């Protein structure tokens, strides 16, 4: 029944990858900016959890709640300090690559100074040492808790996007920025809020990454950004629901190859990405990134 384990693990990891990528896609969808520092924010979320756990014994689930307000604030201010300037440049996408590559390097360098180069982690036993049984398969409790937190975060985000006026305005800007301005939406306000939410989701994913991928180091930001970018391209640029689906596909591909052909596990998810790009260039749920 290895396939059943791969299936369950794939869905659990898919929820994590979907969450890890969603902030990147929201920021791209609303602002057409590629936040290359996204993976570094995930990394910082992991270090925040380790720090609070080691120094004060704070449970990582509590840290999930604690990181939300500062993340929103940092993201909000980052938009007004950097994002707005990038957005008003002639080529926001290219400028964002340059600007956030620089931000990524700065974050990584500061993280090395602050935390050193060694891997930091929290024991999975914090969520119980014994595995849980799902359909007869033993699944680590930490995976279940992490996937559960990811699922709740995703559900709350979708409630925000699809059931609130601000969320609808966010999707309206993703659909057509000029049209949104023409009905009275203030794009700066929505962009700043979205940047805050994107940073918050990344920080939460960083805490969960301690249990899903085993720890964090200052240099892992680039890898995390690449993975998150693969997930959003897979699901469709600018499509939040596509990112969720892209995460599940990515997680399943990773877990099935890790289970049946471990040597191919770094290759298969990206091969699927290339195949989907060839067959459906807009991604699984993407129609067009912009309508105008």
């Amino acid at each position, binding site marked *: 029944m290895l396939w059943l384990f791969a299936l369950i693990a794939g869905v659990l990891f898919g929820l994590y990858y979907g969450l890890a990528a969603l902030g990147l896609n929201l920021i791209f969808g609303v602002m057409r900016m590629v936040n290359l520092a996204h993976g570094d924010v995930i990394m910082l979320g992991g270090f925040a959890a380790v720090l609070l756990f080691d120094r004060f014994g704070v449970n990582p689930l509590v840290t999930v709640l604690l990181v939300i307000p500062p993340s929103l604030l940092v993201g909000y201010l980052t938009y007004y300090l950097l994002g707005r300037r990038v957005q008003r440049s002639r080529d926001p996408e290219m400028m964002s690559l340059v600007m956030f590559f620089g931000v990524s390097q700065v974050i990584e360098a500061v993280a090395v100074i602050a935390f050193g180069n060694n891997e930091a982690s929290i024991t999975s036993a914090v969520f119980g040492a014994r595995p849980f049984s799902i359909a007869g398969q033993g699944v680590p409790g930490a995976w279940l808790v992490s996937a559960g937190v990811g699922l709740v975060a995703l559900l709350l985000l979708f409630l925000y996007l699809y059931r609130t006026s601000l969320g*609808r*305005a966010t999707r309206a800007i993703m*659909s057509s920025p*000029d*049209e949104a*301005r*023409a009905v*009275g939406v203030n794009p700066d306000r929505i962009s700043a809020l979205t940047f805050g939410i994107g940073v918050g989701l990344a920080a939460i994913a960083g805490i969960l990454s301690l249990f899903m991928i085993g720890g964090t180091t200052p240099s892992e930001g680039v890898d995390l950004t690449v993975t998150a970018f693969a997930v959003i391209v897979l699901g469709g640029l600018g499509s939040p629901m596509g990112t969720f689906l892209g995460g599940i596909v990515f997680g399943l591909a990773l877990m099935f190859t890790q289970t049946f052909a471990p040597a191919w596990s770094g290759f298969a998810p990206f091969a699927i990405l290339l195949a989907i790009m060839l067959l459906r260039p807009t991604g699984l749920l993407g129609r067009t990134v912009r*309508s105008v």
Partner: protein
Amino acid sequence: MPEQAEKCLEVRGLGAGYGSLQVLWDFDLEIGAEESVVVLGPNGAGKSTLLKTLLGLLPARTGSISFFGRRIEGLRTSQRVRAGIAYMSEVGIFPELSVEENLLMGGYGLPRARLRRRIDELCQLFPEVARTRRGPAWKLSGGQRKMVGVAKALVADPRLLVLDEPSAGLSPVYVSSVVEALARTRREAGPALLVVEQNMKFLAVAERVYVIEGGRLRFQGTVPELEADDSLRRAYFGLQGA
């Protein structure tokens, strides 16, 4: 427009453009409080630039814009919308949202109860919109999109409705439907109307006409006055076979 009538919109010496390209030059325009005006012009004449500048989507380089006597050229788009200007672009809708969500966005910032009441009223005015209300907007036909776009623009109960080429991409049958819908809107909803178009059918809803060419005002007057101008008649009506 009669001299004493209340002015909804008064534009004087408006200039606008993109980067080093000046598109609109010294443009004047007036619309009365309950008037319907059509701006005609060929492709690239500066019609969309004019509307984007009126809405604040593009900054005015020169001139002034007054809306019911209040200078608005320095206001943000959201402030102009709150003042009572509604705009329908050529696209007209948010394709990734549902029809219902498009209508809700048309009244962005309005209290929820008032918004729902207004949408119900508009669905009675536009049965085509009521029929598609629960579906996704990207599935709509070109004509249905325009209807939803007009209804969306009317949700906030604007004092001026501005439409950018509502005939774009439509078959002649649908163009007639949109003209009829606008006439109905004028009769029942009543905002002042500014339409930029190339299609002569929209003169059916015009009380006055402006012609823009090369970013400059070429003509202003009534429809009979336009028809009496030989060169304009040939340029516009001639091509339409009218």
